[in-house]
């Protein structure tokens, strides 16, 4: 932190308690910065979607933007699951838009206005919750539709009989790893990107502290890199939201169509 004379790149991930609310057992539920940014993301998303609710035959720009997002997810669901995928579009769309909004808000240069944005998706409590939710839906849908036959997912077509002792074990492990990989991928990508940017920012501050020559020599390349990395991070924000939604749709496809 600045008052310790150096920048701590991990400080940005700290959830600050804003005020207490109530207790559940011996756990305290508080309103936090994380909660505030999730609420803001939800509200912004809601406002964005309202613009798509004009339902005109010939859409305006805003409606086209909203329909672009909905069409993107619907066509992805249609391609990965088929016509039955429509049932799960609301869930995957909510997932995609919520994660995308949280990722992008975390990158906004709100510090210029004295507000410190917080990247909610850099916490695996959040990404883990969403991953377990997706995984649970896959399990519920799978067992609901196929009963115990769902276990045939672990025996892919064309497995030779003499490998039947090994393949299901590998398939089971890869299946059980899914929620972890889903949660960790997003959490790690967000955390790493923000740490990287904070480190480059600290290069500039430390360089300036070391004198004008070092400040210019280190600061200008660092700044140039940060501009590039910021663009890259925006891309990553979109890609990670897309990957989360895409993998959820692929897992749902397993549960719906069972290969």
């Amino acid at each position, binding site marked *: 932190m600045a008052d310790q004379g150096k920048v701590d790149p991990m*400080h940005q991930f700290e959830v600050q308690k804003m005020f207490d609310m109530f207790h559940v057992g011996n756990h305290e*539920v508080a309103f*936090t910065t994380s909660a505030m940014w999730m609420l803001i993301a939800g509200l912004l998303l*809601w406002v964005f979607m309202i613009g798509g609710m004009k339902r005109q035959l010939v859409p305006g720009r805003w409606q086209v933007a909203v329909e672009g997002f909905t069409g993107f997810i619907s066509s992805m669901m249609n391609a990965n699951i088929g016509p039955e995928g429509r049932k799960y*579009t*609301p869930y995957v769309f909510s997932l995609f838009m919520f994660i995308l909004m949280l990722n992008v808000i975390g990158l906004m240069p709100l510090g210029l206005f004295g507000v410190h944005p917080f990247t909610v998706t850099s916490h695996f409590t959040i990404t883990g919750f969403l991953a377990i939710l997706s995984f649970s839906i896959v399990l519920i849908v799978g067992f609901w539709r196929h009963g115990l036959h769902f276990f045939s997912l672990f025996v892919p077509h064309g497995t030779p009989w003499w490998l039947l002792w090994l393949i299901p074990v590998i398939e089971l492990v890869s299946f059980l790893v899914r929620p972890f990989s889903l949660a960790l991928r997003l959490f790690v990508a967000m955390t790493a990107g923000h740490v990287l940017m904070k480190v480059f920012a600290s290069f500039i501050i430390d360089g300036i502290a070391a004198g004008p020559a070092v400040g210019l020599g280190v600061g200008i390349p660092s700044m140039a890199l940060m501009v590039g990395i910021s663009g890259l991070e925006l891309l990553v924000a979109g890609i990670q939201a897309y990957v989360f939604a895409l993998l959820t749709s692929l897992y749902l496809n397993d549960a719906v169509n069972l290969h």
Partner: protein
Amino acid sequence: MPQISQFAESWYAASQIFWVLLTFGFVFFVIGRGMLPKIEATVDARDRKVADDLAAAKAAHAAADNLEESYRQQSDASRAAAQKAVTDAKDKAAKDAEKRLAKVDAELSDKLSAAEADVNAARTSAMAEIESVAAEAAGDLVAKLSGVKVAAADAKAAVKAVLHG
């Protein structure tokens, strides 16, 4: 790493889960289930309308093509009929003209041969008259010169011999 170290604080995990449940629940129920189906319905309705309009346009195009084709056939047929009528009329007119010409030709040749016959008759009668007049004159001449009376028939024979060589 605060993501791990903050688990030590009793409020961290509970607050995170509570708020993500609340906000994602809002997003899912209000936006995902409330608004998304309406937007998808709008898109579907538009797609259907576009497809219907395209189909209608295609049908109209085909109808126009058929109409044009039948119009073309009709105009071809009527042109052929007109051409046939013109040819027929031309043929008929030519035949009529030929017939009339032949008739006129025949009339003319009849008239010509009648006139020729008349001329011949006139010429023979004139010749006969000349013979009789010449015979008479010859008889008179002989009588005046020699006092010999020549019979008319002899005179005639003599004149005939002279005239016809």
